[in-house]
């Protein structure tokens, strides 16, 4: 079997009506749904079981800063989908510009999350803090009676941050390939697959922001 024939089989259309690489990414994302469902489910049960270890929204966590970060991630989804739309039209310059913007926005998101962790750490809100007292950012006050809030907060946001980091890392390679002319109006599956992962990361954050920061 020639290399071209093998490549066609690998990348060709599946019985699901999409090419195999795309189907593979969807299946991977579905496993990720189960992964984050486990984390979120554990958070919910721990929060209901030990409410004295959790603070009201806005008391410990900086909600306005994170709302801004949420919007930045949403903006990165727009630039990602625009990159896809541009290469679909064969616009190389548009593809490179939007991919670069997506990388920058992803790095900004990670930087803000890093700042958030640093500030919380200086305030004593660390993953396994047994006792933690906070004077709320919006007038409230919290004295946590155990480590669950910190443990669950850093686990969920940390795993998501790891996913964003992996996404940025892969996006840099996608961008380099774009600058080398690796995509065209006839071959842009790689951009679409990268976009699927990136939008999923955005989607997960939308859920996490509500559950961890607002409820």
């Amino acid at each position, binding site marked *: 079997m020639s290399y071209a024939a093998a490549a066609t089989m690998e990348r060709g259309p599946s019985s699901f009506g999409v090419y195999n690489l795309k189907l593979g990414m969807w299946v991977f994302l579905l496993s990720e749904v*189960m992964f984050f469902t486990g984390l979120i489910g554990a958070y919910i049960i721990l929060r209901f079981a030990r409410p004295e270890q959790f603070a009201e929204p806005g008391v410990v966590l900086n909600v306005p800063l994170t709302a801004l970060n949420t919007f930045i991630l949403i903006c990165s989804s727009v630039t990602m989908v*625009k990159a896809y739309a541009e290469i679909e039209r064969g616009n190389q310059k548009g593809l490179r510009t939007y991919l670069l913007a997506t990388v920058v926005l992803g790095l900004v998101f990670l930087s803000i999350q890093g700042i958030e962790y640093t500030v919380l750490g200086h305030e004593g809100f660390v993953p396994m803090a047994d006792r933690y007292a906070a004077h709320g950012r919006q007038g409230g006050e919290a004295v946590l009676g155990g480590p669950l809030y910190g443990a669950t907060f850093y686990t969920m946001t940390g795993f998501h941050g790891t996913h964003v980091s992996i996404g940025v890392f892969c996006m840099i390679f996608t961008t380099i390939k774009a600058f080398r002319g690796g995509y065209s109006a006839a071959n842009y599956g790689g951009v679409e697959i990268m976009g699927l992962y990136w*939008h999923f990361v955005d989607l997960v954050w939308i859920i996490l922001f509500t559950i961890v920061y607002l409820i």
Partner: protein
Amino acid sequence: MAASTPKAEHDSVTPATHVKPNYYLIWVVLGVLTLAEVAVAFLSGMPKQILIVVLVLLAIWKAMLVAMYYMHLKFEPRKLWIVAVAPLPLAVILVMVILTEHW
């Protein structure tokens, strides 16, 4: 035959084209919904149970917009929908099992 193989490969990595949604409009809606979430959480004064339901619905609305229009699920073949929704019953079962640990 040999000449047709590269073309077949080329076509196979090109996603199917479809009508393009207004990505910027969806971006604006997502931004407004994010603001609405924060406003509802801190300014509405709703009872906690109602607040949780409203916030979860807003989050699901935003997530659906991303999945449907940015991930283009709305324009994908029906068979892919089966794959996409497959983990949802499993996720519900997982959450129910976790919840039974408490209640």
